[in-house]
């Protein structure tokens, strides 16, 4: 349940940005989470329900878009989409591959009202 810690960080950052923009209320929070990140959507939603009341984000909707893992083969250079467990290059079978997408964990945007 480290999602509680993560959500605390999200709400702090969201409130700071809302205040900077002189907003009185946050109506939407858009998160981008890679499938390779150790984050459960359900746990994030639960953490948000627990932590949002009393903050500027109370009542906001939380949307989480997922990013599929993608790697580049260091041997033959091919780029490929894969699942959480298989990193071998589909073209040359090399295991020397480099993940370049799928570990994301960021707050993309918020929607606020004044």
């Amino acid at each position, binding site marked *: *349940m*480290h999602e509680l*810690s*993560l959500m*605390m*960080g*999200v709400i*702090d*950052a*969201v409130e700071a*940005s*809302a205040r900077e*923009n002189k*907003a009185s209320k946050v109506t939407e929070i858009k*998160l981008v989470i890679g499938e*390779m*990140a*150790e*984050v459960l959507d359900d746990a994030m939603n639960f953490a948000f329900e627990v932590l949002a009341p009393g903050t500027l984000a109370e009542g906001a909707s939380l949307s989480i878009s997922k990013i599929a893992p993608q790697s580049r083969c260091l041997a033959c250079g091919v780029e490929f989409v894969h699942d*959480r*467990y*298989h*990193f*071998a290059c589909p073209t040359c079978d090399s*295991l*020397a*591959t480099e993940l370049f997408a799928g570990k994301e*964990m*960021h*707050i*993309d*945007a*918020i*929607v*606020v*009202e*004044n």
Partner: protein
Amino acid sequence: MEIKLKKPVLDFNEGFARENKKLCKEQGVYVLDLMASPGAGKTSLILATIEELRSRYRIAVIEGDIASDVDAVKIKATGTPAIQINTGGACHLEAAMIARALKELDLEQLDLIIIENVGNLVCPTEFNLGEDAKAMILSVPEGHDKPLKYPGVFQVSQAVVLSKVDTLPYFDFVVNEFKKTVEQLNPHAVIFSLSVKTGKNVSAWTQWLSDQIEEKKLCNS
């Protein structure tokens, strides 16, 4: 009105992690974050590591546990400084907790800090503590299929230790299967198969660790 943030969720942790890393670099201290599930043998491996390396390096341990100080007491019994962090229920250590622990240590008098993370194969994975390397332990009784169930922790670890290999005759643990899966998840990881109980291959692990410490010293000098 939409406001674009493009801000990492873990920003709150990364700031502290950067500070920790900078501080330990200035003081020439190598920091290892050791992760494993409860009972895999983190404290035992740390004690064996202290035994092997104490003549060459000045070592301290930061102990992360949900509750109690039983592990810190064991470490202190060897004469090694140990700082206990009780997370009070949290399943992982965060960089801010390490920052507080570092303040309690005399960094100038240290070469190596081992952080024993909270027993958990999921949550510690995402939290950078400012360490030089993350290492993890899987013990034979846990089964060779664990890398498939907890891929994240195997992917962030520079070193993977298979512990309790003296119990291999009693379990259906297929070592080659395990190694193959780890290699597939993390081709760069160094794998050690060892037993703290019998002492088998412990020196291969401590050799790796001392190579890491020396490398950092070279980069600093």
